[in-house]
């Protein structure tokens, strides 16, 4: 789409777009290209000796047990966050949609966790699950469930998944509720007249019509679990215990910033960039389809 009415100026458009472009070039393209270049180098810890090694860093990476297990951790973590986050918010949205009159009250009561920083969410749950003083840890003890996220990897993973889901429910809920409210009531009334009960109506009409929203949210949630949960992992577990919660984004930070393995960290950055590009392409292809739908 193009404008018919335009302004003419030799310099003005460049001046207008300059701030955005300068920041983009200095803080996005320069570092990203350095990451690309660095990923092909091997450097000793003091930066005195640098060698160009082509794709050796990548080969090392995919031979590295730690990296492969971090991939696995990330996959489990993202699937759990997306699956739990989507199903809980879908249930809440369907129920809130049923009670239109109270829906806005429930909406207000459910959306505010969006405003909580991931790291703060982590601290809140860390406190609840703290094995010596946490309330939930105490309840679990009462039920005879052994619980110690500071020592047990599975417990730690459960804790960060819960914190991540808790924070994302509000976002999913809003989009599901909007999706549900845009389904024509006449369709559902017609099904009801034909004798379909609430469960059958949901499975055969509502859920299929909601599938574009669900798919969109699935991509958003996976991106969220991959990248935006850095604060949760760092504040709650720092990747531990014994790297049980070390997701890919955290590993880039830990290896590069704490371990000072520049080439390896850069190669990990490049792998992550490829994942982001893939997810973005999926998202945009879907957006195109939504326009036709």
């Amino acid at each position, binding site marked *: 789409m193009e404008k018919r009415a335009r302004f003419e100026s030799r310099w003005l458009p460049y001046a207008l777009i300059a701030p955005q472009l300068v920041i983009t070039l200095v803080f996005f393209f320069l*570092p990203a290209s350095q990451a690309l270049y660095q990923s092909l180098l091997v450097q000793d810890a003091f930066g005195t000796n640098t060698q160009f090694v082509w794709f050796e860093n990548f080969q090392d990476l995919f031979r590295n047990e730690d990296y492969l297990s971090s991939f696995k951790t990330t996959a489990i973590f993202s699937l759990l966050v997306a699956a739990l986050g989507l199903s809980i918010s879908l249930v809440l949205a369907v129920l809130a949609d049923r009670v239109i009159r109270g829906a806005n009250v429930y909406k207000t009561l459910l959306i505010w966790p969006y405003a909580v920083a991931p790291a703060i969410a982590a601290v809140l749950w860390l406190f609840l699950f703290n094995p010596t003083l946490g309330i939930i840890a105490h309840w679990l003890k009462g039920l005879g469930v052994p619980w110690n996220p500071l020592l047990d990897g599975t417990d730690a993973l459960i804790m960060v998944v819960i914190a991540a889901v808790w924070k994302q429910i509000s976002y999913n809920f809003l989009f599901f509720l909007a999706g549900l409210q845009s389904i024509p009531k006449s369709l559902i009334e017609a099904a009801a007249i034909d004798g379909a009960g609430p469960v059958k109506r949901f499975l055969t009409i509502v859920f299929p019509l909601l599938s574009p929203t669900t798919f969109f949210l699935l991509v958003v949630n996976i991106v969220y679990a991959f990248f935006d949960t850095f604060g949760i992992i760092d504040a709650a577990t720092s990747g531990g215990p014994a790297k049980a919660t070390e997701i890919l984004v955290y590993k880039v930070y830990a290896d590069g910033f704490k371990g000072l393995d520049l080439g390896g960290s850069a190669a990990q950055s490049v792998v992550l960039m490829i994942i982001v590009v893939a997810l973005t392409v999926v998202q945009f292809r879907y957006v195109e389809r939504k326009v036709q739908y």
Partner: protein
Amino acid sequence: MSTPSAEPKPRMRFPVLVLMNLLPRTWRAGGREGMIENRPLLTIFTHVILLIGVAIIALPVYVTFVASTLGPDEVLRAPMSLIPGSHMIENYAKVLGEGASSNVTTAPVGRMMLNSLVTALVIAFGKIIISLLSAFAIVYFRFRFRTLAFWLIFVTLMLPVEVRILPTYKVVSDLGMLDTYAGLTVPLIASATATFLFRQFFLTIPDELAEAARIDGAGPLRFFWDVVVPLSRPNIAALFVILFIYGWNQYLWPLLITTDESMYTTVIGIKRMIAGGEQATEWNLVMATAMLAMLPPALVVLLMQRWFVKGLVDAEK
């Protein structure tokens, strides 16, 4: 004159109907349009599950609030009380004025809140301003490299800070921007999302407005300031809510570039407070800080709820 109130109101003859009007609408048959059939049990069940959901969502914040009102010994007593204690004012005054945790030195939380506020406001307004300008250039001018510029901005969507941590840190450190407000904000100010949002919106502004402005002799900047910006106000408000939360809640970036505790943002300050180890953490003070860290963005969401929802939906288009 006819007799205005001679007839008794019909409903007064049916006291049961009057009573029914006092019931919540949803309990009555056909209470709301679109409610397909009336199933009171299902409706009660719906409310019960929703209330349980609300309670579970609220639980961590309630416990945090209670912990922030307890004394240093009360908070360590397992299980902790679920009724607020009497140390609220004392705890909040202490963290705001002096900071928390004897084991790690941190700046007063008041100072951190100020840092967070400056960061959030500069990021939000910075993103909005430079995106308004660049979207205006892209939509209202035809110039060389226009398409290239558009794509350069677009590609940044695929380069989140998280994937270029080290080199970005190096650039900022070379520019001498560590431990400064500029370092906290400027690298995060470029925004593809905001630029696209404004571009989409500008394309819907009728061409007649720009033509009329031209005929009246108004230049592009005059048109931008007097017509485009006022028309964009709803979009600006919606974006502001989202970007304020984004800026306030930044974590990885301030974690990397702030080493001076007087430059910590509130979110980073909390992380530093719990880093001292299990025994030494003063949880009542940490929790008071957590409440303070959540308050401003939560208020923005609740008070500007309409803009918040619009902003979320727009940003994902």
